[in-house]
C-alpha cells in the first residue's frame, strides 16, 4: 500500500449527509477503487430513493421500469406487509447492471452507510458487471433500460389492442416457463438489445409480406414414406431437442399470434438478462464485499473516516458476513456474502503470505504478490461453480467446518460422506461447486419431439437426476400453461438420467380460451 498521508479532516462527521457528502465520498472512494485497486467500472449514477420506492424496485426485480403484471403487485403487497410488520428490513441499496451503472441508495441510511453502499455497489458490483465474462457474454448493459422501456410500451400497446386479460394470460404462461427460457450455451453472436426491437419489427413485417395463403391449398404428397431418417430430419427442422422452451414456442408454436410470440420473446430476453446473476451470486457478493471492506479500511487509514464511522461500518460488515452454523436456528443455507468474502480474502492471503499447503494447492497464485491483479482476473473469468472448484482452499473448508451429508433417500439415517480433513477436501469442493451449478440446481427439461403426423402432441422430457422428480402440483400447472401456449396436447416424461427408465408421465390438454 502506498504511504499513508493523513487527511486534514474526515469526509463527514456524524450520521447526517447531504448531496455534497455523497459526492465527496464517491470521489474519495473512486480514487482508491480506480487508482489503488485498479478497478474498471461503468460511470456511476447514484439515485437517492425512499422506502416506498425501494419496495417498488423490489417488486420489479430491481429494475427502474417494467411492464405491468399482477405478480409484481403480489410481491409488492407481500414485501410491504413484511416490512410493515418489521419482519423484514430493506436492503441498503440496489444496483442495476446498466451503463451508466445505477445504484439506488436509501434516504434513511447514515453517512457511513452511504459510503459503504457506494463502495459496495457503485464500485464492487459495478466492476463485476463490467468485467465478468458471463455478463459480457449475455447481457447488454448499454441497452437494457431502452429494452425495458420498449417492453413496457409493447405490453401496454398489446393490452390496449387485445385486452388486459389476454395479455395477462400469456404473461402468466410465459412467467411460468421463464426459468426455462434461457440459452445456456452462447452462440456466436453478441446480443444487442438496442437492435432487438428493430429486428423484431422487420422480421414480423417480412413474415407478413411473404405470407401467401395459396401455399396452403397445394395438394400434399400422396403418402409420406416411412423414412428412418424422417425423425432426425423433423427434429433438425424444429431445432430439437430444445432446452429453451420459450424460444422453441416463440419460433414453432403453431397457434400463436405475432404479438404473443413477441411477448414470449420479451419475457425470454429478460430471463436471459438475469441468467448470469443467478450463476454469480457468490462471486458477485464476494467481490463487492471484499471491495467495500478494502475501500473502507483505506478510507480510515487515510483519515477520511473517523473512528466512530469505522466502528459503525465494521458492525454492519460483520452482520453481513455472518455465517450461522448448520444447527443454528438462523441457518438458512450458506451465506454468499460470508463465503464469497472469505474466499476473496483467502486469495489475497495466498498471494501475499502463502503457507506450504497453499503452495501445494495453488501453485499458480501462491506468493505471487500482486493480489489485486489475481483477484481482478478471478472476477473476470469465473462463475460460482468454477470459482469454488478452483479456489476453495482447505483453509476455508476448515474455517467454515464444512461437511458433506448424503441422503440416499431409502435408508433411515443420513450419512456423513466427508468432513474438513485431508481426505475430504476434494469431495467437499466438488459437492459445494455442484450446489452452485445451474445445470444441477434447475431441472433439466427439454422439448424432444412433436408428433407432426398425428395429433401434434408436444413431447417434453425431464432428465431426472438423483431420482428427484418434479414438484407435482407445480409441474402440472406449468405444463398446463405450456399446453395452452402450444395449442395441442403436451406429454411430459420424467426419465431417469442413469437408467433411462420412465419414472412418471404427465399429459395435459390445452384449455379453450385460456389465452383470451
Amino acid at each position, binding site marked *: 500500500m502506498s504511504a499513508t498521508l493523513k487527511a486534514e479532516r474526515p469526509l463527514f462527521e456524524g450520521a447526517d449527509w447531504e448531496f455534497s457528502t455523497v459526492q465527496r465520498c464517491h470521489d474519495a472512494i473512486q480514487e482508491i477503487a480506480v487508482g489503488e485497486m485498479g478497478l474498471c467500472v461503468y460511470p456511476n449514477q447514484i439515485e437517492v430513493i425512499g422506502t416506498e*420506492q425501494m419496495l417498488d424496485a423490489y417488486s420489479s426485480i430491481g429494475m427502474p421500469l417494467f411492464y405491468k403484471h399482477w405478480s409484481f403487485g403480489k410481491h409488492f403487497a407481500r414485501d410491504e406487509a413484511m416490512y410493515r410488520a418489521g419482519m423484514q428490513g430493506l436492503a441498503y441499496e440496489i444496483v442495476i447492471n446498466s451503463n451508466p451503472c445505477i445504484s439506488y441508495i436509501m434516504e434513511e441510511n447514515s453517512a457511513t452507510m452511504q459510503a459503504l453502499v457506494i463502495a459496495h455497489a457503485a464500485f464492487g458490483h459495478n466492476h463485476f458487471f463490467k468485467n465478468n465474462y458471463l455478463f459480457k457474454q449475455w447481457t447488454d448493459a448499454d441497452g437494457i433500460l431502452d429494452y425495458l422501456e420498449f417492453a413496457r410500451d409493447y405490453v401496454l400497446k398489446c393490452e390496449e389492442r387485445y385486452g388486459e386479460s389476454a395479455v395477462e394470460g400469456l404473461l402468466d404462461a410465459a412467467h411460468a416457463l421463464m426459468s426455462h427460457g434461457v440459452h445456456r450455451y452462447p452462440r456466436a453472436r453478441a446480443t444487442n438489445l438496442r437492435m432487438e426491437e428493430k429486428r423484431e419489427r422487420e422480421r414480423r413485417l417480412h413474415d407478413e409480406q411473404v405470407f401467401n395463403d395459396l401455399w396452403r391449398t397445394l395438394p400434399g404428397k400422396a403418402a409420406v414414406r416411412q423414412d428412418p431418417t424422417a425423425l432426425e430430419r423433423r427434429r433438425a427442422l424444429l431445432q430439437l431437442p430444445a432446452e429453451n422452451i420459450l424460444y422453441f414456442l416463440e419460433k414453432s408454436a403453431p397457434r400463436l399470434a405475432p404479438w404473443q410470440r413477441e411477448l414470449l420473446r420479451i419475457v425470454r430476453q429478460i430471463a436471459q438478462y438475469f441468467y448470469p446473476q443467478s450463476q454469480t451470486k457468490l462471486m458477485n457478493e464476494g467481490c463487492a464485499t471484499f471491495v467495500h471492506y478494502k475501500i473502507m479500511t483505506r478510507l480510515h487509514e487515510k483519515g477520511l473516516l473517523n473512528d466512530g464511522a469505522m466502528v459503525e461500518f465494521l458492525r454492519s460488515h460483520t452482520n453481513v458476513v455472518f455465517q450461522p452454523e448448520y444447527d443454528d436456528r438462523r441457518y438458512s*443455507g450458506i451465506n454468499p456474502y460470508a463465503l464469497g468474502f472469505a474466499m476473496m480474502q483467502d486469495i489475497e492471503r495466498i498471494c501475499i503470505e502463502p503457507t506450504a499447503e497453499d503452495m501445494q494447492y495453488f501453485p499458480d497464485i501462491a506468493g505471487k504478490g500482486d493480489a489485486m491483479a489475481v483477484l481482478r482476473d478471478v472476477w473476470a473469468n469465473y462463475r460460482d461453480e468454477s470459482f469454488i472448484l478452483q479456489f476453495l482452499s482447505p483453509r476455508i473448508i476448515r474455517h467454515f*467446518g464444512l461437511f458433506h451429508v448424503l441422503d440416499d433417500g431409502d435408508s433411515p439415517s443420513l450419512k456423513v460422506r466427508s468432513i474438513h480433513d485431508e481426505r475430504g477436501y476434494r469431495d467437499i469442493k466438488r459437492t459445494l461447486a455442484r450446489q452452485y451449478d445451474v445445470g444441477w440446481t434447475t431441472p433439466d427439461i427439454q422439448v424432444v419431439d412433436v408428433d407432426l403426423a398425428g395429433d401434434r402432441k408436444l413431447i417434453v422430457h425431464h432428465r431426472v437426476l438423483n431420482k428427484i422428480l418434479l414438484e407435482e402440483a407445480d409441474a402440472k400447472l406449468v405444463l398446463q400453461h405450456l399446453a395452452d401456449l402450444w395449442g395441442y396436447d403436451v406429454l411430459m416424461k420424467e426419465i431417469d438420467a442413469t437408467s433411462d427408465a420412465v419414472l412418471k408421465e404427465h399429459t395435459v390438454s390445452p384449455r379453450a380460451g385460456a389465452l383470451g
Partner: protein
Amino acid sequence: MHIVDRRLNPGGKSLANRQRFIRRARSMIKKSVHEASGERSIKDGDTGGELVLPAQGVREPSFRRSASGGVRDYLLPGNKEYVVGDEIPRPDGGGGGGGSEASQDGGGEDEFRFALSRDEFVDLFLDDLELPDLAKRRVVNAEAVTYERAGYSVSGNPTNLALLRTVRNSLSRRIALHRPKPEELEALKAEIEALSPDETERRLLLEEELARKQRRTTLIPYIDPLDVRYKRFDAQPKPVAQAVMFCLMDVSGSMTEHMKDLAKRFYILLYIFLKRRYKKIDLVFIRHTHTASEVDEDTFFHSPETGGTVVSTALDEMQRVIEDRYDPSSWNIYAAQASDGDNTASDNERTADLLVKHILPCCQYYAYLEVGRDIEHFPPGFIRRDSDLWQTYEAVVQSGAPLAMRKVGHRRDIYPVFRDLFARKTGSEAATA
C-alpha cells in the same frame, strides 16, 4: 458521476400492479375480508388490515424439483463432532442437518399474507351495497353548490381574469380618448430628425406636438383599472338527497351479551357503510328497554344498560325525533331495528299500530334484524317458535309495507344478512324486499 434525487418522483408506481393483483385475487380477497370481518373486534371494523390468502390461487408455478425423495447431497457449515462414516438420524421436518436446506430448493409458502389499505378493505367489504329508494332530493344548504359561469364582473380573483374582455375594453377606451399610437410618435420623431436646421418654426411646432402627444400617452394608460373584467361565477345550490338512519336497539335484560354483540356488529357495518357511501347522512341512535332514549354513538355502542322490554317506546321516540328534526317531506328516512324479538305481550298491538300508521308511511325502508342465540347451542329436537315481535312484524309485512326482516344467529351470518338487506336492487323490489 451523477447524483439524482428520486425521492420526489411521484409515488404509487406499483399501484397499477397492485390493482391488477387485487382484481385477480378478488374473489379470494372478498372471502377473506368476509372471514376477517367475523373475527375482528368491533372497534377496528373501519380499519384495513392484514389478510391471509391461500397461496394456491395466486400461485406462480415453475418447474421445480421436489422437496422430498431422491438422493440428496447436503453441504453444511459448522461441523463439530462428526467424522466420516457417522450416521445421523433423519430429522423429521425442518431443523437439524439439512432441514432448512431442503426447504430452499423445495416447498414454497403455504399462504400469502399481505395488508389491504383501509379504503381497499372497505371497498371490497361494501361492494354493491346501497340504500334503497333514495328518492327525495331537495336543496338543503350552502354546502352543496356548483359554480356556473355568469357573465363578467369588475372585481374578482386574478386567476379569473377575462383577458380578452379586458383588452377589448382597453382598446375601445384608447381609441375613444385618442391615445397616440406608438407608430405616430415614432413618425413624428423621425420627421423632427429629418428637418433641416433652418426650419426652426416647423421644428418648434412639431416638438410641441410631440410633447403634447407624449403627455397624452402617459395620461391615458394602456390598461386602466377601469378596463379590467373578471369572469363571474355564481354559486348554484345543488339538490342533494339527505337521509337519516335511525338505529333502534333493544338493550333489555333478555338480550344476552352474544345478542348484543351481534346487534352491535350489525350497526357497525351499517355505520361504516353509510359513512362511506353517503356524505350527508344523519344517524340517530335510539336504544330502549322499557323506556327509550336517544343517545350518542359512543353510548350506543359501549355503555351497558338493562331493564324490561317495551318496543313501542323506541318507536315513540323515533316518531318524536322525526317530528322534531326530520320532516318526512324532505328527508329520506331509514330505520334499522335490532332485537331478540321479546316484547311485553300487551305492547305488541300498539307496536304494530305505531309502525303501520306512523313510522312506515314516512320511511323509505325499515329493516328488522332479529338476533337469536347461537343456533348450535340449541338442544336438538327443540322447535323454535317465532318470537312475539317476529309474528307481529310478519303480519305487517303481509300487508305489503316496506319492511324487511332477517334473523341472525351467529356472527358469521351478520355480513351476509347485511348484504342481503342492502344489496343493490331495482327500485320496485327494494320497497317490498
